[in-house]
């Protein structure tokens, strides 16, 4: 009997330690596991290194984690977005470190980490400041830069459906970084709007096989970042913060 379900987002993130590297799925708001991120804020882990494509919007989700001062370093490709104010302020005050990585190199480094490939060569960023100080190599007459795989202590992602074995399906462009991040996390935690018994999903259509997933938590109606922001929400809620 295999059952990777945990009862709550709180329980799902309980053991994330100070100083952990945490991969967080999402491209913009699509695929952002907001409820897991909010649980991580409540949990209190500090000095995190966050690997995520963006840095969140408004003061919910990823931006709220940054705002709460829990993140020491961000590894991402695009730390600016509409409604993005938290990261720029922290960055300008020197309170968060940034490792800027081209989006495709970021995806490939994560996939490499998950696939046991410690390093690879890529043409991306050759001749640009993002290859400064990196090892170059000419292969077949073209120049490439050496990039290293990335792994994480924990990965937080959002699925549409997951089963008790940890198999996951996604929704539209919310898939984005979740499959490679699921591979690269020592502990991969999935929040899914629907959780079903093993055997329910079509084995041909599974996107993330269960071997890459450690915990599944049911979040029936996940919030959308843009809707929270439009409603003026923050996390923690201002009322709660003042209480």
């Amino acid at each position: 009997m295999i059952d990777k379900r945990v009862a709550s987002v709180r329980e799902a993130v309980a053991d994330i330690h100070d100083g952990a590297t945490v991969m967080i799925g999402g491209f913009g708001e699509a695929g952002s596991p907001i409820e897991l991120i909010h649980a991580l804020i409540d949990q209190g882990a500090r000095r995190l290194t966050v690997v995520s494509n963006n840095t969140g919007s408004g003061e919910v989700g990823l931006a709220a984690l940054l705002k709460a001062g829990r993140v020491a370093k961000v590894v991402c490709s695009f730390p600016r977005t509409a409604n993005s104010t938290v990261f720029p302020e922290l960055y300008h005050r020197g309170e968060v470190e940034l490792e800027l990585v081209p989006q495709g190199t970021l995806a490939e480094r994560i996939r490499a980490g998950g696939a046991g490939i410690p390093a690879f060569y890529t043409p991306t960023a050759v001749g640009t400041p993002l290859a400064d100080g990196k090892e170059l190599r000419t292969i077949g007459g073209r120049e490439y830069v050496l990039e290293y795989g990335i792994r994480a202590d924990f990965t937080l992602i959002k699925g549409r459906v997951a089963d008790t074995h940890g198999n996951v399906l996604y929704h539209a462009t919310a898939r984005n970084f979740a499959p490679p991040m699921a591979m690269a996390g020592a502990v991969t935690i999935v929040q899914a709007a629907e959780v079903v018994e093993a055997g329910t999903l079509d084995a041909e259509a599974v996107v993330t096989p269960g071997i890459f997933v450690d915990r599944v938590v049911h979040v029936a109606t996940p919030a959308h970042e843009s809707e929270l922001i439009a409603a003026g929400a923050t996390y923690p809620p201002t009322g709660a913060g003042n209480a």
Partner: protein
Amino acid sequence: MSAEAPAIGWTRDDIARRVAQDIPNGSYVNLGIGIPELVARFVPEGRTLVYHTENGLLGMGPSPAKGAGDPELINAGKRQVTAMPGASFFDQATSFAMIRGGHLDLSVLGALQVSQEGDLANWSTGGSDAIPAVGGAMDLVAGVKRVYVMTTHVTKDGEPKLVERCTYPLTGRRVVTRVYSDLAVIDIAPQGFRLVELAPGVSFEYAQERTGAPLLPPAP
């Protein structure tokens, strides 16, 4: 002179229309965020292009009808889109395998500067105040078969954007295939900027004056 409505030469829509003419039926195309997205509006009748958006969709369609949007069906500019018949969703590693592996036929991008050798600067002005952000631009120029640049010929201050050597941080070296500006269509040839076509009312001299490196006459 406003970049939005140049005194003479092509409008943005004109440029987009001109780019669209050069894209063969069945091409796999990635349109950069912003102005390059206009190209999709001007694809000639009878041609089908397949649009790739690097956040994980091949077969991207136009914006949804009002109220029919899905906050998790978006493009690389984080705007809501739709999926066309024949579309597929995939993860970021696969999406950039398409880009890096040379599977896309064309990328249309904006520019801060393009050098006569085809170097492109379009992600950063190098200012120490700015938050650096690169997204998929470096991957696109390194991997896609042809890179077209859509841009005003000069900056708002009248400075040439086609230059001998880029002064802004590069996005990629020797990556641009062709430039479509409000004044001209210009190839990056082995010898430098080679004129392909002038916008109506624009003379060779007028374009040359506004270009920061020698403009070569059209190939015979």
